[in-house]
């Protein structure tokens, strides 16, 4: 359990949010040209990093807006929060 700083509402408990998985997986531009391998990669394969991971969250029980988080999955420490469409503040 941890606290998440929603960029719209401020600090709230993690239980108000829902995790949306790995961030920055862009939808294929021309889906009809994708091979089965590329579809599998887009739909199912995940980095599932132990360490610093970029991920999407949604404030389900609040403003219901989506945003991005940089979080260390080995200790659940959040390093940065940034809005959808923004560049990650740390690399």
């Amino acid at each position, binding site marked *: *359990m941890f606290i998440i700083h929603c960029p719209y509402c401020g600090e709230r*408990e*993690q*239980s108000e949010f*829902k*995790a949306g*998985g790995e961030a920055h997986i862009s939808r294929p531009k021309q889906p009809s040209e994708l091979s*089965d*391998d590329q*579809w*599998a*990669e887009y*739909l*199912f*394969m*995940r*980095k*599932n*990093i*132990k360490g610093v*991971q970029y*991920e999407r*969250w949604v404030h389900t029980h609040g403003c219901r807006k989506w945003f991005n988080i940089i979080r260390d*999955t*080995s*200790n*659940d420490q959040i390093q940065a929060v940034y809005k959808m469409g923004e560049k990650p503040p740390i690399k």
Partner: protein
Amino acid sequence: MKNKYSIFSLVKNAFSYHENWEKAWKDPEPKKEYEAIIIGGGGHGLATAYYLAKKHNIKNIAVVEKGWIGGGNTGRNTTIIRSNYLWDASAGLYDHALKIWEGLSQELNYNVMFSQRGVMNLAHNLQDVRDLKRRTHANRLNGIDAVYLNTEEVKKFCPIINTSPDIRYPVLGGTLQKRAGTARHDAVAWGYARGADEMGVDIIQNCEVKGIKRNGNNLEGIETTKGFIKTKKVGVVAAGHSSVIANMAGLRLPLESKPLQALVSEPVKPVIDTVVMSNAVHAYVSQSDKGELVIGAGTDDYVSYSQKGSHDIVEGTLNAILELYPIFSRMRMLRQWGGIVDICPDASPIISKTSIKGLYFNCGWGTGGFKATPGSGDLFAHTIANDEPHKLNAAFNLNRFVSGDLVDEHGAAAVAH
């Protein structure tokens, strides 16, 4: 040959105050090279090594474990064993395991305390009733014992359940698999470790894998905290850390690792002599031989390797437990913990070859791997030894995420994932 455990060895050792028992497994340093290496010394990994040595005559095997054997998810699960899965592929896989469980203590000469006390799955709404009836029929067509119970029969089988129609999620019925039950999870790891050790398998603890060395598509060995070990075959059985090992080999897997929690109460006199699982409210409970209630909660929805989950998950589970079993309202909880489970998009496991020759993965068991331990080890050993899957695990290959031929047990497996 190890000394056989029996009533006579117990009496004999009593005379020396139980101080001269032979060690159940050695604690060797790694050799320079092995024919096969298993990464992960949990139940599945140790079972794989055991069957590789026993059925496939590969003797030069090492199991490398970063902590101590059975200290990961093997020692953290709620010990439930059942095989009442909906789809044919899953039914085949889990019932294969259940059949091995039935003779496992004798085979290993180690009491794994397998207890066929039955597993009951409850229905709380009309859709649950339809789903559970459908699953009962599917199970029976696959030769798996299953019966559907109405509310009165549920109450008769487990009298402490509150079957009042006035509760938030009333009990409308349930299914019962009588061959299902529980086992002592630590004993499973220890029994397989002792059996594998006797056949010459090196069990190397406190040895963390740091890298997978390969030359093009061929494996050369593994880098560990105890140095480089040469091998041509590696079976990865690393549960929540499977993606970490895959990343070392340059592979990506369709897995997400999430915390799953469980808790036990203070010990009390026998009050529940079966296992009751409830899909809709996500609560399951049984009672250990020590008298503690063993309660399984749900997973958090975010990726984490921290081996601790959120408080609200435990709270939700205990709310459901208290509504179903008002008798537990003043029970105190003794311990709570989390384990990291690797979940596939279709909530079915992967027992498969990979694009790298000699590298095999046994992962994706998600929230329900313990029940499959013996079957998983047996089938994974077959896959490693023959470089081909057994027909029972052919459907659980990695390629199903490319072909789309998924084994979609999500929600169909009698418990929510």
